[in-house]
């Protein structure tokens, strides 16, 4: 929908912001559930037993950098530097996938090595639900970026004139990144460094 809109903002851009507001409440409920159950039920395996903060810090850094990469991709698209756009777009996808790879690695470590499954205790349940949901959001983001990348590479339909699609994807991507920062702080850091019941 082009033409004049009452605010000047495109409908889709407004929609994305409204959607992200809604998604905030979604993650807030999951984070709330996690916090309410923190320290309850069977305490081991608990956060201090399974978390490997150095490794997770690396994956967090990678995801943060993917946001930066996304900013570059958008900046180059708006300037019609399609080659540079494609490079940075690809790098965003790689970094997003790397983050997902780290998540898969982490989950398997917890599951096979530490005997922590969603069924084990309240920590397992709330941890996997929260981070799994976030991982699902990242996966959808990577697929979306993949579709845009494919459209650019094989159909050449992504230009500065059609930058709205990337603008929306970038907004979503940054949101998912910010949610991860909250999760990293509240679940990983808060879980291991405050000495909150860990033994």
């Amino acid at each position, binding site marked *: 929908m082009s033409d004049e809109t009452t605010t000047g903002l495109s409908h889709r851009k*407004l929609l994305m912001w409204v959607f992200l507001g809604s998604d905030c409440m979604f993650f807030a409920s999951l984070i709330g559930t996690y916090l309410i*159950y923190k320290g309850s039920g069977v305490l081991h395996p608990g956060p201090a037993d399974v978390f490997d903060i150095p490794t997770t810090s690396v994956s967090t850094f990678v995801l943060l950098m993917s946001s930066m990469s996304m900013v570059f991709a958008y900046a180059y698209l708006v300037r019609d530097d399609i080659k540079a756009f494609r490079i940075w777009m690809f790098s965003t996808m790689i970094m997003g996938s790397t983050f997902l790879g780290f998540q898969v690695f982490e989950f398997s470590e917890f599951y096979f090595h530490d005997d922590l499954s969603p069924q084990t205790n309240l920590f397992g*349940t709330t941890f996997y639900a929260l981070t799994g949901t976030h991982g699902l959001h990242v996966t959808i983001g990577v697929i979306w970026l993949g579709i845009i990348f494919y459209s650019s590479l094989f159909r050449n339909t992504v230009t500065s004139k059609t930058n709205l699609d990337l603008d929306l994807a970038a907004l979503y991507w940054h949101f998912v990144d910010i949610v991860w920062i909250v999760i990293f702080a509240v679940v990983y850091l808060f879980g291991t460094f405050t000495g909150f019941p860990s033994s």
Partner: protein
Amino acid sequence: MTTIPFKLPFNIKLYRPVSPTGVWGWLTTVDHKKIGVLYGVTAFIMFLTGGIEAMLIRTQLIAPELKIIAPEVYNQLFTMHATTMIFLAIMPLSAAFFNFIIPLQIGARDVAFPRLNAFSYWAFLAGALIMKSSWFLGGSPNAGWFGYAPITSATFNPGNGIDFWIIGLQVLGVASLAASFNFIVTIINMRAPGMTMMRLPLFTWMTFITAILLILAFPVITVALIELMLDRTFDFNFFNTKAGANPILWQHLFWIFGHPEVYILILPAMGIVSEVLPTFSRKPIFGYPAMVLAASFIAFMGWLVWSHHMFTTGLGPIANSVFTLTTMLIAVPTGVKMFNWLGTMWGGDIDFKTPTLFCVGFMSMFLIGGISGVMHSFSASDYQQQDTYFIVAHIHYVLFGGSIFGIFAGIYYWFPKITGRMYDEKLGKLNFWIMFIGQNLTFFPMHWVGMQGMPRRIFTYDSGMGWAFWNGFETIAAYAIAFGVLIFVINMIKSWNGGKKAGDDPWDGRTLEWSIPSPPPVYNFRDIPIVKSLDDFWRTKQNSSNSDTKVKSKTKVTDIHLPQPSYWPLLVAVGLTIAGFGIIYNLLFTGIGIGIMLITVCAWSFEPVNEPDSH
């Protein structure tokens, strides 16, 4: 039907429909007016099914110790009755008006996302079918419409019923979210030139506030339902008391959603009353800014009162005191609205036609419901009222006497605009009086019976309790309500095609929808109006000395580009339904359903616009 092919990968050829008619026309429509009618008819049928469920409940309670309905079935009946009325009747009936009326009131040709709009209807239909099919597929949910843990867990509820409830609600949630996103963007971004937010008709304002409440509240119940589903299907521990879970988590999540939800249920009806009363009193709404402010305050405060549903759960005196105070406070803006409606009528020249009667009925009954609400807000005495028929009385005064009466006012008010014909006024008045008297006779005694100690959700009661007489009375009165609804159905059927022709503006209305023909042409406004004030249509009528002068239209009808039909919204909804049934029965279907959704959503986003000269 001429079509334009477009290219998908792998050289698949698919066509976008162009101006289809008949059934295919309805299945692919993206016209907000048609979607409104679809919502309205479907929701009304659901309302009737919920009514039947109610009649069965009341029949079982007509006398003590009856064995007409077995306890397990009874528990399913009250669960389905409430779930149906709230999610399948009141909300989509309101949505029917959001769809039909909002673009007309803001001077737009359609909503911001017409295909998303169609999708929200098909998803609603899917959710309704999932929910109601439970009756035929082995048993309906039986744990009440708020499904408290842990009785909803697989341990205590091994059958499929609760799964139907979870999936049905999730699909309905998707539908509601999609619709609300649409209306928020539409109301912010598609207003006619000159229509500032403070010149919006109050029905549009209430819709806007309702939609904002909805997009923030539904994610919370979505999470609660996901957690319950993970527990039931995959043995997670969210509500597993053996793992140390506290069932109160469910109650908190549910009511953080649930309280805003009741404002979602009442604000649209209040919006309708705020349209009908000024029109039939020939005066503007009294205190327009206060009405907007009051509704906004209600919406804001609605987030701060949720634990008044949990007063008896042992939160402690501090929490109980806080929530008592916030709940008492929320009565104030509600009272302001009541006084403003009185102020609107005061000094007016009031035509007590059927819409007006329903509004006045709304006011007098919502008042009673509001007063009993203040009674509940005192947590100390709520310890006696909670979980009794006193609450059931309150619920029905605000939802039936309130929301439903408001919706009926809207149906009668906008009937001429939607159908182009007048309803039968005598039948309308008869419908009102029977429903009004029936509602009061059915639900007023419940206040008394509740205070006499009758708990809710009980399939029978003893004869020595002092409840038998009033229960019998309530049941007979309930049958009267059903009769009143029957009168309404007869009126609708009789008048839809056979009523007197209505003309553009049968009520001498104040808002833009009355400035266009009835029923409106597909493009709504030939010329997008330029708005100079609140109640702009009234202003132009009052200012023009010669009412026959019609401004020569500047726009050629053939130049108006409308959103084009599409079948992808329907297909995405089909994928969603399959995925949903998969969670209940076999996860393979969930995979298939998600796959279908991925493909159809992609196809939707790549669907091109047909060439302009093809219609």
